[in-house]
């Protein structure tokens, strides 16, 4: 059967067809009864993805550059990916600032290991770019670059009593990326793919949907473990975080108790 759809329509249809489980997890996440308490945990997970964005896209751009002399698609991809890598620069700092507004310092974030789903999602793209073809990056970007609407994020912040400042990364993307999806699709429609290149892009999109679903499952799993004594200290709770005043009171209390114990000896 001869296809009449454009590159972007075809890819978007495949992504939509395979995103049922992912959409269900995302819906479950944003409507979770404890979202207000555990939103920092999501930001931590997201940090793992965003911190890798610029190096990953740049890596794919370098791989495209290597193929450029013999591959017309790679020749077009190389400058696009290099430029896109620059656009993503520094966004991980936005996330660190958002986490700081919720009481989580840079050291706490950097001390933790990333989710395994994050290393699978990002790591698979390094592999595809280096050992298969950097066109895979287009499938990844088509799945991940799809920000929520600003009014939805504002409503979530309000409903969960979260400071709007802690949504700055998501809101900046939501506001700055207006039309970004359409631009990306337009770019996709100007490219000529071989059957193999198209297969690689589709495979990358399908696996990204799958790993992203695993990412949201991992976030939700952390939510479920938050009350377990064994895990509680390693999960970022907003509700249980202490303000500087509370922290200094607790410190003073601990010092008094220690002094009391010493006096008893």
């Amino acid at each position: 059967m001869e296809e009449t759809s454009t590159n972007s329509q075809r890819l978007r249809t495949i992504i939509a067809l395979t995103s049922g489980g992912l959409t269900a997890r995302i819906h479950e996440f944003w409507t979770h009864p404890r979202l207000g308490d555990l939103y920092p945990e999501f930001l931590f997970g997201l940090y793992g993805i965003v911190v890798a964005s610029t190096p990953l896209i740049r890596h794919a751009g370098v791989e495209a550059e290597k193929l450029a002399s013999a591959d017309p698609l790679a020749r077009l991809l190389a400058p696009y990916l290099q430029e896109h890598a620059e656009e993503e620069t520094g966004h991980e700092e936005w996330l660190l600032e958002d986490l700081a507004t919720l009481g989580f310092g840079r050291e706490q974030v950097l001390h933790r290991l990333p989710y395994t789903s994050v290393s699978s999602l990002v790591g698979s793209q390094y592999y595809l770019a280096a050992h298969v073809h950097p066109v895979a990056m287009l499938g990844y970007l088509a799945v991940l670059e799809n920000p929520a609407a600003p009014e939805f994020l504002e409503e979530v912040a309000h409903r969960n009593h979260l400071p709007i400042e802690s949504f700055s990364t998501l809101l900046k993307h939501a506001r700055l990326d207006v039309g970004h999806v359409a631009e990306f699709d337009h770019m996709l429609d100007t490219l000529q793919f071989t059957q193999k290149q198209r297969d690689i892009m589709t495979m990358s999109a399908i696996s990204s949907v799958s790993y992203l679903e695993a990412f949201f499952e991992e976030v939700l799993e952390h939510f479920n473990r938050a009350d377990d004594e064994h895990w509680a200290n390693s999960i970022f709770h907003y509700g249980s975080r202490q303000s500087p005043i509370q922290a200094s009171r607790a410190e003073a209390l601990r010092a008094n108790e220690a002094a009391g114990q010493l006096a008893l000896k």
Partner: protein
Amino acid sequence: MTNVEQLQQAGLIQTHNPLTPEEVETVNALSSAEVEALISVKAKLGDSFFQRKVKDGDGHRLGTLLV
């Protein structure tokens, strides 16, 4: 055997939850490598019912993520 039939056989398209004619057209035009990718990640295409349902309401506001 068409791609749709192949994916039904693999349990990835729920028979009680049929695809739209446009989706059937897209799926049947997939290459064997693309079908293999769907099978390898066990992408349940029938679940798109939920996705469509949310999208028809206000689900489009959820987005996916961002990089």
